[in-house]
């Protein structure tokens, strides 16, 4: 595999059509503006990092990608978001859109089903009935989420009774079981211990071969370790998008980004 481009020279990847294009995106909750004027492209098979202080609009941005406004009260989306060439506002079948996008939120949600059923739920919703296929999916996804060894002997135990860190890895396994094209991770490591976080980060690096990841994180070092390009959000605006390597080696184009990276405000 060709190592991802971290430099300004355009490669084939940089010019390939983006998986997600965002133009003039604004998000409001009632009268409160959470995000405005965001333009960016997320390329296929990249890890796109988003960093920024609280209330920067990072989570709202993720919500717009899979049309979560449908069930977040008073949420209004302006501008356009296209996913794989389709404007998400015009997609009638939102279930299909969401099944292509895996989401992991900061607080783990183990569904009140067995560990096995948690991971098998998405394939089953798609109509998969074969026990052998489901077994294979469950094992592969749990292994990738670095959870298999801990739960392989109790797959029938309740997923919602696992510890917080284990539930988060179960949530990741569940998102992977969707075989998504796009994976949205919103501060996935808050409830996970550092060692496991590292193991999951290794998995994410490998997953880049198969899918595209948007990583929202409060840990700027995590963005540095994982992201190909990093966006800095501040106060509801996207301040800059820069290849990660350059951003973290003093090449941030906006002085506010440099200030944030060095912890001078927050």
């Amino acid at each position: 595999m060709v190592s991802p481009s971290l430099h300004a020279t355009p490669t084939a990847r940089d010019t390939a059509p983006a998986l997600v294009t965002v133009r003039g995106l604004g998000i409001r909750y009632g009268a409160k503006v959470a995000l405005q004027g965001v333009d960016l492209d997320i390329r296929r098979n990249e890890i796109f990092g988003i960093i920024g202080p609280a209330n920067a609009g990072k989570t709202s941005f993720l919500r717009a990608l899979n049309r979560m406004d449908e069930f977040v009260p008073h949420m209004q989306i302006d501008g356009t978001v296209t996913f794989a060439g389709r404007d998400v506002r015009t997609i009638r079948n939102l279930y299909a859109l969401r099944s292509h996008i895996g989401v992991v939120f900061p607080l783990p949600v183990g569904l009140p089903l067995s560990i096995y059923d948690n991971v098998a739920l998405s394939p089953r919703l798609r109509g998969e009935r074969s026990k052998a296929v489901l077994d294979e999916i469950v094992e592969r996804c749990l292994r990738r989420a670095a959870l298999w060894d801990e739960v392989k002997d109790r797959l029938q135990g309740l997923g919602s009774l696992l510890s917080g860190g284990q539930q988060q890895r179960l949530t990741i396994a569940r998102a992977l079981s969707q075989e998504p094209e796009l994976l949205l991770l919103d501060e996935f490591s808050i409830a996970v211990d550092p060692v496991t976080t590292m193991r999951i980060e290794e998995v994410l690096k490998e997953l880049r071969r198969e899918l595209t990841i948007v990583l929202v994180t409060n840990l700027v070092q995590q963005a540095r370790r994982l992201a190909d390009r990093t966006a800095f959000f501040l106060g509801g605006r996207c301040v800059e998008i820069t290849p990660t390597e350059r951003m973290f080696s003093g090449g941030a184009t906006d002085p506010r980004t440099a200030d944030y990276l060095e912890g001078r405000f927050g």
Partner: protein
Amino acid sequence: MTTVPSPFLPTAHEAGAYRWQSLVRFLFLSLTVLLLVPVLGILGVLVVEGAPAMTPSFFLDKPSKLGAAGGIWPALVGTIWLTAVALMVALPLGVAAAIYLAEYARDNWLTRLINLAIVNLAGVPSIVHALFGVGAFVYFLGFGESILAASCTLAVMTLPVVIVATRESLQAVPKAFREACWNMGASRWQTIWNIVLPNSVSGILTGLILVVCRAVGETAPIMFTGAVFLRMVAPESVFDRTMALSFHLYTVSTQVTEVPRAIPFAVALTLILVVLSMNALAIWFRMKLRGRKKW
């Protein structure tokens, strides 16, 4: 030598707070215990007065002398019929309405109107429901005076409470579970079927049984819609008229002369036992369906 004051000795203010706290606790405890008085009183009187009349033949025989003698078999079976049919009518209607309100309804004028209607329906006196039942089920739908008409009346009367109880069971399932499911691409119905209902079914069934059984103890709703003063045989279909324990209790205690003193007490005790055993069924359901805590 000076004594160091212990930091754990209560100040005068704290000591006052403790005394006040003990007083309040005792007061609330005694008020709670007071609740037991009517329960024990009712049961005690019924058992003492009614138990001598409760022989096997009292349950299994048909009534004679207008209820002043003989047994209550047709009324006992009739009450069970009414309960079962009312449950079967209230379950689909109440659960469907509650699922709509809890899972699908947006906050708009229609939803607010429906909620207002539910609250108001719950406040309608049972005799008014009875007259509605006569008009709607006995005449308009042509059920005639029958178990079906009486049970439908009971179901309509209990629907508001069934809907509210069911909606609360549904809403007790955390929203995060639903969002996690929706984000996987599950439809609303797939989410309800896979996650919400399995985790609220025990609450729904328990609420339903408690509410409907309570209604079956009522006399007014069935008086004009299907209950009869005397019928020598137990009902055989939902289109039969039937005797019912509650109505039978009303007649033997007020309408029939020269009833032995023990009979009304025995009928009342039987009615309570029927309702209590239904409640026991509801509790058994709850324990069976929710044997383990899921989150």
